[in-house]
């Protein structure tokens, strides 16, 4: 079996790389695929927290590289889904503890026994990014509809284009707020896609559920009702090659929203 190795990257920090990794990984595992998540953010690991696995980590990626344990021993199985496992980053070391060669080797080994190897990339474009990208053949660039995030995503896309190993890269637009787009205070999905001229793989709405799901250590894809969860499940399906239409984020959710909508329409007529 030769699995796919996908790096999840962004340039800017705080746009949702780790949340995206956790959710896509969980969604793919729920769909029956064997998935390994690798946290490459040495010294600032967080993927374990989002998955609720922080108390189960014994060995980290640095232990594997420095041969204190076997690769298999360092993989932590998810609580709910045996298809999903995590290779955690070392919290007490920095980026220099690992090099690109070593990470590529780990990815190559893992992809033989898994359908997907997802790499959670650290922010920035330095060594940590170079390491994370080394073993991957595909990339998902996470950005938000904000200037700074888009600018950084543009840099990342430029760097990915220069890498021969990366065969395809797609854009995931996170934290979209339809109400702000409607009032022309946020760049629309089309604006961002046009500026970056990069194919889209997902649109994730801003969702307070992300905060509560992080609090609980349970990815939001497990919540059947959450809109962001649904959006992430759709991303997973698109990764699997299915054609899923993008969510219509304009749908009014509650009574108040409907009234506001009616007002907006009335105003448009006048």
């Amino acid at each position, binding site marked *: 079996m030769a699995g796919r190795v996908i790096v999840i990257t962004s340039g800017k920090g705080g746009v949702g790389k780790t949340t995206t990794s956790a959710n896509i990984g969980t969604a793919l595992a729920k769909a029956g695929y064997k998935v390994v998540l690798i946290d490459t953010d040495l010294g600032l690991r967080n993927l374990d927290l989002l998955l609720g696995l922080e108390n189960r980590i014994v060995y980290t990626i640095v232990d594997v590289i420095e041969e204190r344990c076997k690769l298999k021993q360092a993989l932590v199985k998810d609580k709910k889904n045996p298809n999903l496992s995590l290779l955690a980053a070392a919290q007490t070391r920095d980026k220099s503890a690992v090099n690109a060669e070593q990470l590529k080797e780990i990815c190559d080994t893992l992809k033989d026994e898994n359908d997907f190897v997802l790499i959670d990339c650290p922010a920035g474009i330095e060594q940590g990014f170079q390491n994370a990208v080394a073993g991957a053949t595909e990339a998902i660039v996470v950005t938000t509809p904000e200037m700074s995030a*888009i*600018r950084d995503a543009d840099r990342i896309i430029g760097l990915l284009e220069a890498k021969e190993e990366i065969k395809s890269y797609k854009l995931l637009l996170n934290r979209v707020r339809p109400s702000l*787009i409607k009032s*022309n205070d946020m*760049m629309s999905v089309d*604006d961002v896609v*046009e*500026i970056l*001229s990069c194919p889209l793989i997902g649109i994730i709405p801003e969702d307070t559920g992300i905060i509560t799901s992080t609090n609980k250590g349970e990815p939001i894809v497990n919540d059947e009702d959450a809109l962001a969860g649904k959006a992430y499940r759709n991303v997973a399906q698109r990764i699997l090659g299915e054609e899923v239409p993008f969510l219509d984020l304009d749908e009014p959710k509650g009574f*108040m929203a409907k009234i506001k909508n009616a007002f907006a329409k009335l105003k448009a007529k006048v």
Partner: protein
Amino acid sequence: MGLLSDIYNTVAKFFRPQEEQGDASKSVATNRLKLVLMQDRTNLTPKILEQMRGELIDLLSRYVELDKELLELNFEQEGDQVALMLSIPVIRAKDEEEIEAALRAEAEKLEAKLENLSEETESDNNEEGSEDYSAEAGQEISETSENETTGMSTPDGMNSSKNQEESTEECHSEA
């Protein structure tokens, strides 16, 4: 409270004129972002862009009278292609005599400059490579064209004032 303020905002918005809502921050962000990305991608710094703008103004001013303050130099992106968009408000076209006069004046200036230059370089030691010479000549040419702009009317602070000062100084020394 949230509900009440929602209602208030909706009602208030309803009565506000359209224009007030129209100049939303989104288009500002999009435009700023496009420009900054183009600079990132092409390594065109704001300084170079300003220089380019200045030189374009000089060139076009020979033929038409421009509203320099309203001249816009932007990048536009269509798919993968990037276009340089120059929007020039023309006040009036110059007639042939004016154009010829402007060209002649400039040609004379250039000739004088070149003569000066070749005399200087001949009297200078011959060790300097030909590359240096051509680079210097190029500089002189751009400076003369800047002289012309200053003569016509000093453009606002948009133009790099440093170069302007240099060229005016030189003008005096020549005179």
